[in-house]
């Protein structure tokens, strides 16, 4: 059995700000994070998205890594496992969400409905990451809320553009 390469020194360098260590950490960590997430998510269709989200989270927190508290790989996989649990909770919440009031036998089939519920959950999560002003602007643009009278059309257009950019970035966290 091949020994698991230790990327602790590389992650220490990366935590210290040495950008040249990025590729080494990525090469060791990504296949393992991906395998762990696939195993934990039982090959769910969004396993790849969760794995990518987990890996991005690892790099976002790389500067927190402290070698005195343990080696790199358990630390990385711990973050990945946390991401899977968070995704599961999100998924459970989306399943618990009330279904539409359409009568049985009409409307989309259960598979489509499940996909829609998942998309809706991701949209809610993405909207949840936006500042309240952006959410208000998007809702006003969709006609779901009143547009504030004090805001000029030009300002509103700019705000809407910014809110859409942020939503797109947040959505990218779920769907690449």
């Amino acid at each position, binding site marked *: 059995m091949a020994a698991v390469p230790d990327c602790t020194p590389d992650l220490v360098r*990366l935590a*210290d*700000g*040495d*950008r040249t260590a*990025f590729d080494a950490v*990525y090469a060791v960590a*990504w296949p393992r994070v991906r395998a762990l997430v696939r195993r934990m998510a039982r090959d769910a269709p969004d396993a790849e998205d969760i794995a*990518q989200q987990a*890996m*991005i*989270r690892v*790099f*976002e*927190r*790389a*500067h927190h890594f402290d070698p005195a508290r343990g080696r790199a790989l358990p630390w990385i996989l711990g973050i990945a496992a946390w991401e899977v649990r968070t995704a599961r909770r999100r998924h459970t919440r989306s399943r618990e969400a009330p279904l539409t009031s359409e009568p049985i036998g009409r409307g989309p089939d259960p598979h489509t409905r499940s996909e829609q519920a998942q998309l809706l959950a991701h949209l809610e999560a993405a909207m949840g990451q936006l500042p309240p002003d952006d959410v208000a602007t998007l809702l006003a643009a969709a006609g779901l809320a009143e547009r504030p009278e004090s805001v000029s059309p030009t300002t509103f257009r700019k705000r809407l553009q910014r809110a859409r950019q942020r939503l797109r970035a947040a959505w*990218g966290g779920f769907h*690449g």
Partner: protein
Amino acid sequence: MDDFRTRARAGYERGRRRLGLFWSAIVVPFAVLAALVDDPLRAVPLGLSVTVLAGWMAWFGQRPGRALRIGLPAGAIAYIAPLLGRGTDLVTPGCGLTASCFACCAGGGLVAGLVLSVGTDGDLRTLAWSLLLCGALAALTCLPLGGAALGVAVLSTLAVTGTHRAVRALAA
């Protein structure tokens, strides 16, 4: 997958930027206090510069990043000494350099110098970055007093670091 590698790298840079903002936020109260108790025309641009410097050092990491963790506490000591002197009426109004206020600032500078030399463990490049931040923070308060505190800090740092390196060289 190269696209994902780019996103992961962007995530790393995002984390570094947050770190930079965190350290900048720590420096902001120093700048605000200096603007309140001293000349705002000097304190505001200097405070902005120190805030940006601290943020950049944290974002960049490596030697400047390590120096930040030493230079900031040392600079805080050199910064507080003139303010303490002023608070306890040791300093004459208008930042006049009297013997008592100089002693207060020199004491602060000495402690700051010791912190710098011990914290940087004889690494001269890290020491240089730490001194830069320490000096910028000390200059935020009353300039002549901050300068006095910094001068003593530099002298004591060089003395202790020089001794430290000499001892090491002898031991080797």
